[in-house]
C-alpha cells in the first residue's frame, strides 16, 4: 500500500531524509519513532503529497507521489502534528468544507458519521476556536478519515493530550486501523507498542531499526539491567553481588536501591535474589529495568554513517566499515 524506495529530501544544503526505504501493507499500522528533527514529519508530508521528494520513489496505493499526486491525495487522509483549523468555522462547517473538497456524495450524512466516530457529535455547532486541544485533535482525525481513505497518515496524533484523551484517540486509531493502512509517528514507545504492528526508528534521516515493537523492546531490554531494592542496612551487598559471574557493574541509587548491569542475554535475577537472601538482606524489589525510547535511540543511533540491520534472530548487525 505504501512503497518508499531511496527517498531523499534536501532543504537547501541540509539533508532532512537520506535514502529511506520501507513499505507498509494493507491493514498494517506502521509506527514512525524518532527524536525531533529525525525526518518523520518530512517523510509524512511527502507521502501525503504536500511536498515532492528531492529524489527517490514513493508509491501510495499504487500511484506515484510526483506524477499522480492528485490520485494519491484522493486516497490519503493526513493529520498534521498541530492540527490547523479555520477558527471562524463551526466544527460541522469545517468538516463539510473538507468533505466538499473531496467531492463526497451525501456530505452532511458522512460528516455526522465521522463526528460520531470521533465522539464529537454534540459539538457539531461549536466554533473551532472554542475547542480544547484534545477536541481539535479529534477534529483533525475526523477530517483525515471523512473520505474513508485507504491510507491514513497521522503525525503525533496524541501529542499534547491528557491521559484520558490519549487512551481515547489510541482506541479510535486501532479501530480505524482494522480496515486501513496507517502510518503514525510518535515519541512514545509504549504508544507504538500498543497500537503498531511494526515500528521504524528513524534518526537523522536514516532508518535506525525496523521491527515489531515487542521484538524491538525485548532485544533492547535484553542488554541486561536489573533494578534491585532492599530494606534497611545494605553494607556488604555490593561486594557480594560483584562475586556473581556475569554481573558487569553496580550503581547504588541510594536508599537501598541498586541498578545492576549484566552481560547481554543472561537473566541473573535468581542468582541475585539468592545472594541477597543468603546475605541476610531484606529483599523488597527485583525486576528488569525498562528501556526508554531515549535509551533505544542512544543504543541505535550513535552517529552511524549507515543504519544497522536486524537479523531474523533480532540481533542488530552493525554495517561493515569500508
Amino acid at each position, binding site marked *: 500500500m505504501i512503497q518508499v524506495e531511496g527517498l531523499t529530501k534536501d532543504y537547501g544544503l541540509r539533508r532532512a531524509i537520506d535514502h529511506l526505504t520501507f513499505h507498509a501493507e494493507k491493514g498494517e499500522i506502521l509506527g514512525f519513532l524518532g527524536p525531533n528533527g529525525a525526518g518523520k514529519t518530512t517523510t509524512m*508530508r511527502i507521502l501525503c503529497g*504536500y511536498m*515532492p521528494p528531492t529524489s527517490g520513489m514513493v508509491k501510495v496505493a499504487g500511484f506515484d507521489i510526483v506524477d499522480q499526486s492528485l490520485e494519491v*491525495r484522493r486516497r490519503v487522509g493526513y493529520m498534521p502534528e498541530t492540527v490547523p483549523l479555520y477558527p471562524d468555522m463551526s466544527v460541522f462547517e469545517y468538516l463539510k468544507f473538507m468533505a466538499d*473538497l473531496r467531492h463526497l456524495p451525501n456530505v452532511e450524512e458522512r460528516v455526522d458519521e465521522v463526528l460520531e466516530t470521533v465522539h464529537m457529535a454534540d459539538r457539531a455547532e461549536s466554533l473551532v476556536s472554542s475547542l480544547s486541544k484534545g477536541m481539535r485533535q479529534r477534529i483533525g482525525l475526523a477530517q483525515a478519515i471523512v473520505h474513508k481513505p485507504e491510507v491514513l497518515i497521522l503525525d503525533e496524533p496524541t501529542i499534547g493530550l491528557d491521559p484520558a484523551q490519549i487512551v481515547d484517540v489510541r482506541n479510535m486509531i486501532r479501530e480505524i486501523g482494522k480496515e486501513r493502512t496507517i502510518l503514525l509517528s510518535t515519541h512514545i514507545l509504549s504508544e507504538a507498542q500498543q497500537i503498531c504492528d511494526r515500528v521504524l526508528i528513524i534518526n537523522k534521516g536514516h532508518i535506525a531499526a525496523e521491527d515489531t515493537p515487542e521484538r524491538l523492546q525485548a532485544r533492547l531490554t535484553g542488554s541486561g539491567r536489573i533494578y534491585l531494592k532492599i530494606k534497611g542496612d545494605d553494607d556488604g551487598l555490593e561486594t557480594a553481588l560483584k562475586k556473581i559471574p556475569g554481573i558487569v557493574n553496580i550503581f547504588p541509587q541510594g536508599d537501598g536501591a541498586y541498578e545492576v548491569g549484566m552481560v547481554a542475554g543472561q537473566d541473573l535475577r535468581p542468582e541475585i535474589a539468592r545472594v541477597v537472601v543468603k546475605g541476610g538482606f531484606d529483599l523488597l524489589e527485583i525486576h528488569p529495568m525498562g528501556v526508554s525510547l531515549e535509551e533505544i535511540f542512544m543504543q541505535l543511533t550513535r552517529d552511524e554513517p549507515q543504519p544497522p540491520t536486524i537479523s531474523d534472530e533480532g540481533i542488530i548487525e552493525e554495517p561493515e566499515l569500508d
Partner: protein
Amino acid sequence: MRNIWTIAIREYKAYFSSLTAYLFAFIMLLVVGVFTTLSIISSLNYFGQVPPPDVQVVIYPVAFLLVFACPAFSMRLLSEEQRSGTIELLLTAPVRDVEVVIGKWLGSFLLVLTLIAITLIYPVALNMMTSPGIDQGLMISGYLGLILISAVFLSVGVAVSSLFSNQIATFVVSLGIVILIWWILGVFGQVGGGNPVISFLDLSSHFYNDLTQGVISLRGVVYALCLTAGFLTLGTVSVETRRWR
C-alpha cells in the same frame, strides 16, 4: 471548478465572521454617500446653470476606495493560511494549486462585488432625483470598469499573499503594486507627450478615458482580464514553487 467554488464560498463567508467586511462596507457607503450628497447639494445651488450630477460622482470615489480596499481584503487570503498552517491541509486535499488560488481570489471578488452592488443605491437615488434621470449606458460601463479594476487589484493581492505569511507585508506590497499600475504608470504615460506603450499599460487611463465615459473598449477590457489572469498565474506558480522550497 467545483473546488474553486467550494473555496470561494468559504472565503466569502469568512469575511462576514469578522468585522472587516462590515467595516469596509460602512466606510465605502459613508464616503460615497458624502460625495454624492455634496455633489447634489452643490448642483442645487446652481440650479439650471450646471447640468445635474451624473453617475461619475459615485464611481470615482468607489474606484479611489478600491485601490486601498482590495489589498486589504486580499492580504489575508494565502498569508493567513501560511501563518496558521491551514495551507497544509488545503494542499494535501485533492485540489490543484490553481484551484486554490482562483478560489481564494473569487471569494474576495464576490465580497467586492457585493460591496459594489450596495453602492448601486446611489445611482438609483440620483436617477430618481434628476430629470430625465442618469445616463444608464454610462452607469453600466462605469460599473463594469469598477468590476474589472477590482478583479485586477484582488489578483495582485492574491499573488502577493502567496509570498508572505505576514498580512501587513502582503498589504504594503500589494498596495505598492496597485498604486504603480493605477497611478504611477499614468504619470509616466503623460510625461513628455505620452509614451504610447506606457499609456496602454496604465490601467487608469482605460478606466477614466473609456469606461467611465461610456466607452467599453475591447482593448481595455482584454487588458484588465489579461492582468488578472497574469497575476493569478503568478500566484499559482508561487504556490507550486512553495512546495519545492
